[in-house]
């Protein structure tokens, strides 16, 4: 682990709020491939906790272990106060899981899926029907309720999936990459849904590949890398670890470029490209100060780009690993941390 990394132990040493999930030294290998190499987690009840990492970091394995789908090779964990190994059935009674691949029965209708869940939770028929109808309504699926789930769009399936998870009124919800594969619109709907879940008092553990998503939703974020926690903290704390927030200014005239370089003495010069890199946290105040300085000098950049730290930067800073798969491998997922202004 590089020295620049913050400690992965939980910083909350004060009065310990009751924890929804605690894990100590979780290990898991498949054959001789180590997927999790000693994970410690403490998720306070009623909070949103994000596990951030690229594919293959061990996010899904962590969720599978905590949701009793697979057993850990080493370490121990309590979920909702119950030991995973000793009383998995009590853990199952407290949790709800929505996996990366939709866990709906495609052959039957959305409504039948909901009633199936109600039946399995032993909810009496009339109450089950009422709960199913309410949840379908809440997730905008009432019109599609009588259609086979296989005909649903990706976003609808994911909403049905979450609706099914909520039938049993879980206190802790695991969401494994809830927005992967969704178009931007469905993605924002999903964010809204997750925010509403939390106001209901449940604890949410979500995994994601996108820093922005963790930033938007989570109280605390743990960065998972090659089966270990590279860092843990709030979004702000993590971003502070990451250098690389800057504004790029491109000029066409060498004279303007030279003057600008003088006006912005802290910037890094790229003389060949006539481009300046001025350090910036991307905030409005910071940008205004920068533009004011250019205006005062009577200069105008031909092209201006704001770069805020993204998952790439976090990973580079935390792990020095340049081979990390990045969100840009998903063509429909535009890099939202860069905004271009002309």
């Amino acid at each position, binding site marked *: 682990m590089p020295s620049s990394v913050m400690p992965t132990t939980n910083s909350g040493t004060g009065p310990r709020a009751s924890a929804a999930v605690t894990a100590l030294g979780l290990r898991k290998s498949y054959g001789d491939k180590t997927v999790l190499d000693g994970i410690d987690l403490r998720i306070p009840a009623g909070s949103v906790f994000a596990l951030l990492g690229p594919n293959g970091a061990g996010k899904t394995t962590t969720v599978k272990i905590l949701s009793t789908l697979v057993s850990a090779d080493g370490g121990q964990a309590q979920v909702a106060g119950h030991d995973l190994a000793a009383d998995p059935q009590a853990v199952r009674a407290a949790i709800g899981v929505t996996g990366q691949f939709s866990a709906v*029965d495609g052959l039957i209708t959305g409504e039948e899926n909901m009633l199936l869940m109600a039946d399995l939770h032993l909810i009496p028929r009339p109450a089950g029907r009422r709960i199913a109808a309410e949840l379908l309504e809440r997730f905008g699926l009432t019109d599609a309720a009588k259609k086979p789930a296989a005909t649903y769009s990706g976003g609808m399936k994911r909403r049905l999936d979450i609706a099914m998870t909520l039938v049993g009124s879980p206190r802790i919800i695991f969401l494994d990459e809830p927005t992967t594969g969704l178009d931007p619109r469905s993605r924002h709907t999903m964010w809204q849904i997750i925010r509403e879940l939390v106001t209901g008092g449940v604890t949410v553990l979500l995994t994601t590949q996108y820093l922005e998503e963790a930033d938007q939703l989570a109280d605390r974020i743990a960065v998972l890398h090659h089966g270990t926690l590279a860092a843990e903290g709030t979004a702000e704390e993590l971003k502070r670890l990451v250098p690389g927030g800057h504004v790029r200014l491109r000029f066409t005239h060498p004279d303007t470029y030279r003057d600008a370089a003088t006006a912005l003495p802290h910037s890094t010069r790229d003389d060949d490209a006539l481009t300046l890199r001025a350090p910036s946290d991307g905030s409005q105040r910071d940008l205004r100060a920068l533009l004011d300085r250019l205006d005062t000098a009577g200069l105008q950049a031909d092209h201006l780009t704001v770069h805020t730290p993204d998952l790439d930067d976090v990973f580079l800073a935390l792990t020095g690993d340049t081979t990390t798969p990045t969100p840009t491998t998903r063509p429909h997922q535009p890099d939202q941390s860069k905004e271009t202004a002309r």
Partner: protein
Amino acid sequence: MSNLTLAARNSSTMLRRNLLHARRYPSLTLNLLLTPVMLLLLFVYVFGDTISAGIGGAPDRSAYIAYLVPGLLLMTIGSTTIGTAVSVSNDMSEGIIARFRTMPIHRGSVLTGHVVGSVLQSVISVILVGAVAAAIGFRSTDATPVEWLAALGLLVLFTLALTWIAVGMGLISPNAEAASNNALPLIFLPLISSTFVPIDAMPGWFQPIAEYQPFTPAIETLRGLLLGTAIGHNGWLALAWCLALTVLGYAWATSKFNSQGK
């Protein structure tokens, strides 16, 4: 709530789910029904005269229908359980099974639902094939009500045994194609049993294989019950096969299901 009540309630929910699947997508079951019906018609109307002449002396179609039907009823069961293997394999590839595993439900209910659903489908299939047989002239010769009941019991036991085996085959198959290939013995075995010709009409070296495989004792027992032929030791053999395959299939399928996804 006791474990048994939970098991019963969850299993009946799972059964309803499987029956819903079967009702909504009946084509698989119907396709599998075609095989025994086609074979029945083929062997009666195309090969019937020749074969019955070969085994009985004089061509006698109605006697040959009577000879064929018990074997074909059991073949119907074998054929239907291929559908079980396919649907179990399909089901296991669905995310919903992972969801079931994270819910506070009775573990075994997923498989129990499949097995009970499949047994019900097999019984319906047997009735349909039996109806076709009756329509082309099959009649039981003075079987008593007790014998009818015993015949029904044998069919259900046999179905249960093959279904658990088929569930195990479905669980070890990565996809539907593999499942239908793995389950091929269930339709192949009745072809090398006493369904079409008596065992002693087969080559000597082959007779022990045909005689002691699971289908022949069950066929001979059913024949005895419905047509009054000698059952001999076949009744016990059939019962032993049914029990052994049920226990084996149950243990195999359950351990496969519990270890999956680990």
